């Protein structure tokens, strides 16, 4: 699992004091929450609601970094910066990249959850 593309599993385990049950619980929360946040982010960008976009991308950054999904977290941080600067065109393009990058995350989360159960 240490070789996972998006999740640094060793870092995640260290963060939870090696509590595998907690890893499972957190990934389950992620699977419930992440699609909703992504949807809310898409909506706020389409409505040019910069404040909301900053808030959601910031929350996503926190969630992703807590789960050691570092590449995705860095991308969320970029979205936050672009929203703060109200860079409309760059933000839309960056969001499209982000969506593509995080597509595989739920599946990896599933794999991780199976791993910690064994």
């Amino acid at each position, binding site marked *: 699992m240490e070789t996972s593309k998006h999740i640094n599993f060793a870092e995640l385990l*260290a*963060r*939870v*004091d090696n*509590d595998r049950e*907690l890893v499972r*619980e*957190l990934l389950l*929360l*992620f699977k*419930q*929450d992440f699609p909703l946040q992504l949807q809310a982010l898409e909506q706020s960008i389409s409505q040019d609601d910069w404040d909301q976009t900053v*808030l959601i991308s*910031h*929350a996503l*950054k*926190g*969630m992703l*970094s*807590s*789960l*050691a999904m570092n590449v995705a977290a860095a991308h969320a*941080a970029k979205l936050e910066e672009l929203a703060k600067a109200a860079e409309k065109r760059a933000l839309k393009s960056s969001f499209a990249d982000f969506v593509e990058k995080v597509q595989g995350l739920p599946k990896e989360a599933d794999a991780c959850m199976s791993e910690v159960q064994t």
Partner: protein
Amino acid sequence: MRILIADDDAVSRRLLEKTLERSGYEVTVAVNGKMAVQELTKLDAPRLALLDWVMPELDGPQVCRKIRERRDQPYTYLLLLTSKESKEDIVAGLESGADDYLTKPFNPDELRARLRTGERVLHLEDKLVEAREQMRFKATHDALTSLLNRGVIVELLALELSRSQRERTSMAVLLCDVDHFKRVNDTYGHKIGDEALQEVARRLQLSVRSYDFVGRFGGEEFLIVLNNCDPEFAPNRAEEIRKAVSSRVIQTSAGPLAITTSIGLLLSADWRAHSAEELLHQVDTALYAAKADGRNCVRRALPAVQYGASGVQR
């Protein structure tokens, strides 16, 4: 120890909650800043708090400001969680009243170490408050009897006199003196005398209501202020207080002692618009009359124009 976590992100919140529970903390959770303020301003609120910087309703620094606005409340140690790393942000966070900050994603060992620092600060604060309260008590109370000391009871007498005049209520002042106390000291020594005074003080305190005042006026004299006391019932109240001291012998380490008190009584209704000093002078006159009348009795001070030059009703 109890701790509050305020974070709108479910993953961060659960991660913090579990990490802290594992470290022995009793965790309360808030999902936004407004809820955090509500939790932290409750009676018996947690005194350690971990606040996410960016939250709906109120952000972390706004929560800090709200908490620091309160005065005379136990100190709350506030730690901001932030993914903001610029010096300006950190300065702004600390300026808002936070005690410390921690960068997200947090390292569990660093989090625990920083919270231990917070606990040490709270412990020191508690010790300071305790020391201040002890000093305040010592400055306002008599060391032997733990009753209010002379300065404080006289000050309260003046305040209550003003209040009774302003609100047109009645108050009663009692000056009590332990009878033949010198004889107790001479016969049994000062240690036994002190034991007797402590018990007299305890009985006097128990014989009044919670909003009345009892103080050691000096030596074996005690001053009692009965607030909002109906003049009709005041003489009976004074009698009850006298009996509270004399009805049972006082057990001392030298054996049982029969102790009585003489009491001077004065009702503010009889002396409206006079100063505390004048009241004290009049009640002392009444006490002197009680002594002259054989002790172990109550004598009431009354206006001289009505009751003759002595100013005492027998």
